[in-house]
């Protein structure tokens, strides 16, 4: 029976809206004077678009009665949408701020990697910064001295260790900073998105180091958007939504439930997301074709989720052929929220594509499908994509992305109905009779 490392009991965090930011004494006096005279507070919050979690009296619950126990040696991933309360929870755990209600008990030394390199001073040398940063993170000088060589060789900046860090490249700085943090050896490690920095190789190294830490029986709480990293590292996943724990389970089950309920909020769908939502005829062993990514782009190639009606919407489909594939078909569907089929398009509708797709060698490919401008009305569209290798595999990714169209009007006339299509059609008009004849 293992010991509890973190025990969170009924923790809530309330923020008062409108007290964020600078405050001036005279403003408070002004508000007070206005209230005293029974007038409206001139400094009250203006605007109605307030989140749903307002509990009245301008209070906002970032965390709402969160309870959980984390055992020693467990690696727990915390996921959720932006604003779900992940970072707030981590901030409270790392004692950057205090909870409004509830108690958290921790057993063991805690170190947080909320952001690497906190406390680095540009004028100091790498060596001096290692000691300073280590001390900020809670190590004493003896400890840092013992691990110094290991830290420096992990970071790979040996040659520049006595150079002021302002001369370092940003990559070197991040490597040195992470190296310090990675050698903390706390009993409880809190990690927030640090892996978003550095090049791919270094990220891999960091993940490896974290995996080692986990194997040593330390407790890790890991907040990330990187589903693959969470799946690889964590045995348990907690999903937060609107400040509450909505899913708490093994990482495989938790991630599956999370992805299936998640309304897609990105213009980019990664291979992982597609994989988890893929249906149809799928060969698990020896696959022929697989998606790599599906993106929504504007004309400049920038991912977007909202388009004007007078600009084209480009859907990029990237896929891999694991072996030679003949006569593959790619199709795109637009549907509405209720799965009503609105639009269907096949890549071989375009005569140029027929020859291209007659035979595809092993490798990765990108296709673009462009929905022309001045066609769609002001609506939300869901994109589904099919990838078909006739008689072998048929991959279906339903409603993987969605986008909004803002209708722009034609000729400066902006009359807007909630129709799915509002194309600029050809009209004709002529006078058929004179008014005097009509009167007869």
């Amino acid at each position, binding site marked *: 029976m293992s010991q509890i490392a973190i025990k969170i009991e009924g923790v809530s965090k309330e923020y008062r809206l409108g007290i964020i930011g600078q405050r001036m*004494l005279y403003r408070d006096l002004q508000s007070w004077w206005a209230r005293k005279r029974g007038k409206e507070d001139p400094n009250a919050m203006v605007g109605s678009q307030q989140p749903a979690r307002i509990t009245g009296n301008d209070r906002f619950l970032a965390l709402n009665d969160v309870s959980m126990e984390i055992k020693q040696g467990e690696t727990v991933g915390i996921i959720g949408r932006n604003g779900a309360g992940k970072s707030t929870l981590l901030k409270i755990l790392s004692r950057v701020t205090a909870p409004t209600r509830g108690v958290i008990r921790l057993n063991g030394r805690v170190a947080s990697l909320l952001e690497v390199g906190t406390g680095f001073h540009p004028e100091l040398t790498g060596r001096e910064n290692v000691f300073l940063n280590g001390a900020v993170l809670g190590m004493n000088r003896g400890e840092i001295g013992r691990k110094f060589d290991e830290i420096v060789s992990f970071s790979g900046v040996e040659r520049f260790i006595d150079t002021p860090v302002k001369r370092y490249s940003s990559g070197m700085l991040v490597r040195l900073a992470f190296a310090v943090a990675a050698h903390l050896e706390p009993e409880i490690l809190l990690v927030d998105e640090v892996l978003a920095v550095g090049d791919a190789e270094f990220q891999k190294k960091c993940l490896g180091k974290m995996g080692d830490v986990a194997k040593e029986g330390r407790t890790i709480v890991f907040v990330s958007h990187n589903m693959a990293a969470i799946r690889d590292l964590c045995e348990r996943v907690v999903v937060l939504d609107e400040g509450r724990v909505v899913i708490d389970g093994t990482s495989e089950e938790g991630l599956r439930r999370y992805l299936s309920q998640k309304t897609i909020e990105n213009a980019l769908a990664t291979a992982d997301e597609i994989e988890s939502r893929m249906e149809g005829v799928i060969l698990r062993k020896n696959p022929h074709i697989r998606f790599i990514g599906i993106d929504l782009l504007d004309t400049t190639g920038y991912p977007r989720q909202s388009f004007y009606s007078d600009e084209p919407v480009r859907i990029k489909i990237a896929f891999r052929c694991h072996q030679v594939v003949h006569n593959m078909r790619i199709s795109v569907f637009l549907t509405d929220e209720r799965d009503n089929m609105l639009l269907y398009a096949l890549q071989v509708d375009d005569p140029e594509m027929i020859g291209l797709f007659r035979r595809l060698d092993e490798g990765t490919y990108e296709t673009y499908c462009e929905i022309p401008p001045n066609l769609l009305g002001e609506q939300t569209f869901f994109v589904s994509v099919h990838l078909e290798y006739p008689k072998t595999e048929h991959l279906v990714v339903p409603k993987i992305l969605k986008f909004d169209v803002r209708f722009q009007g034609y000729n400066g006339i902006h009359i807007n109905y909630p129709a799915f299509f509002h194309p600029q059609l050809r009209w004709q008009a002529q006078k058929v009779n004179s008014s005097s004849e009509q009167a007869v």
Partner: protein
Amino acid sequence: MTDERQNWTIVIRNRSGWLDIDLKELWRYRDLILLFVRRDFVTLYKQTILGPAWFLVQPLFSTLVFTVVFGRIAKIPTDGLPQPLFYMSAIVAWNYFASCLTATSNTLIANAGIFGKVYFPRLTVPLSVVITNLLTFIIQFAVFLCLLLFFYLRGAAIKPNALIFFVPFLILQMGVLGLGFGVLVSSLTTKYRDFSFFVSFGVQLWMYATPIVYPLSQIPERWQWLYALNPMAAVIGAFRYAFLGAGSVRPLHLVTSLAVTVVVLIFSIMLFRRVEKKFMDTI
């Protein structure tokens, strides 16, 4: 399943008692305090031409200006002491107090970036500031001693006396007062930024409310009780008296000064401890 009596290392909750100054934790982070001191001292004068010579220039020039303006032009008496010594003794001491106060007064705002990311006892920062300033003070104090020796050898009427043995306590008291008021202002600025504007000119006004450019003996007897309320008046007076042997040291003033110091320190640290837990939410 779990033993409710399990020994938890850390308990995080909304509020703890008022008297929650964790000295043990502060002691564990003593290396951090020293590293902060080192960082501040090393980086303070990087990329300046004169470097640490600024430590010497600043009190010497202030003394020169004071001697000309207040001594020669305004002809304010100095209890019969050589004017440069009279001014410099007070300037060196006041500088220490004032720099502690101003530098600690923006602790929470200036370090919001790092405080928002990692926990360590917040008091390490103002404590390190006070120590860094102590180093500056020691250098300036050495300059003062040279000047003292110079005048002494020339046979000026100065009588260093046994009060010198109390000087370390006076220095400690100035550091504590600067820390106390600085931390107090720092806690208040998290709620009202007005206080940060108040600090720089407040310190200047306070300097004139302290017998620095004039001796206490110039103040009419019926107003002297006011100086009992200014904790720095007694400290500066005693400091000056210890080295120069002139002026007035009133035991009552020293006692009230000490009392004010202790009260300010305790109150400001209690306030600081309450503010530091949540100030990140409002900043």
